């Protein structure tokens, strides 16, 4: 599971000065990756991120992370996450359908 910087072919030096920006729109939402900023350090990255990613959008919180510390699954390896064999038992799918027909009227 290589580091993201390697996957993107970035040198360590570059990756250390590129920051991924995560924005939390409201207190009900999780942080979401909205883009990146180049900065010499995290403090500067937050200042730039605030300017670039919160002028037009709601925001209650920002995270910034240097690309050099992000570990990632390889992009071309989405197959790793495919549900290859039948996992309907996890969703109760079949139960859900069976249910709807025969479930006693409730509420």
């Amino acid at each position, binding site marked *: 599971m290589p580091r993201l910087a390697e996957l993107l072919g970035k040198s360590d030096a570059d990756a250390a000065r590129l920051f991924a920006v995560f924005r939390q729109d409201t207190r*009900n939402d999780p942080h979401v990756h909205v883009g990146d900023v180049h900065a010499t350090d995290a403090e500067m990255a937050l200042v730039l991120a605030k300017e670039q990613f919160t002028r037009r959008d709601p925001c209650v919180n920002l995270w910034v992370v240097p690309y050099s510390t992000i570990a990632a699954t390889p992009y071309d390896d989405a197959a790793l996450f495919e549900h290859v064999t039948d996992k309907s*038992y*996890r969703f109760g799918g079949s139960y859900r359908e069976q249910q709807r027909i025969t479930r006693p009227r409730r509420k």
Partner: protein
Amino acid sequence: DKLANFEAIVASGERIEAGEWMPQQYRAECLRLIQMHANSELMGALPEREWIPRAPTLRRKMALVAKVQDEVGHAQLLYRVAEDLGKPRPQMIEELLAGRSKFHNVFHYPVPTWADVAVIQVFVDGAAMQTQGALRSSSYAPYARVLKRICYEEDFHIRLGIDVHRTLAEGTGPQRAMLQDAINRWWQPIMHFFGPRDQASPHLQTMMRWRIKVKTNDELRQQFLRQFVPLITDYGLQVPDPQLRWNEAEQRYDYSEPDWEEFKRVIRGEGPKSAARLALRNEYWQRHQWVREALDAWGMAA
């Protein structure tokens, strides 16, 4: 000042985030509630897990492993939320193992038959769904976010349980008898699950105002009875409480007052299986000591 600002945020329906200023009582109450919830998920895995090796079909076996896995996954999510309120996860687990922090009454009881698994998935998880569903509007943001996923997965558990419940209810004589016997044994712990009727108290008012508690114990119990009593009676099975009946005038169920002394004893860790389950957890915790030491050393070196 900070308290006024905090009260304003909560009163406006907004949520409080981890790392934000909060009154010490709010932090303590949230930690106690979420830690007990996490403990209950971790201990809640043990009763049903006894039946993973004996699940009677391949599909039931996979579904039961997935269901107990979800409980362990919920413990992971909940300990993570509780952690940010000021207590590292290892400390919470050690407090659980030492019997110094509680877990829900229902997980202190034996699970002698396969029908117990159905009753737990339908009625115990059904009861827990009432509490967890209400807490989705909790004022503590990380808890509310995590509960969204937990409720989705609990809903799957209830449906899974209903399928086993229906299979047994519509099955052979011995299968129906096994199910009725399980319902008889589990009814009192399930009525205990919501706790005694709330006495009006300043503590309760603060909890409700701060949206750490959203509905009273009896509101939740009534909500549960309305949804789940039919699942027993519709199949011609008995609710083992002769007093239980729908009170049309008051639009609520009447029921025999549960034995709250037993509830207190069980919660203190004196339930039929309390000691045995904690001992089993402690045994595995000791057996894995070398693994923890190895990982600590590996972490240091990494």
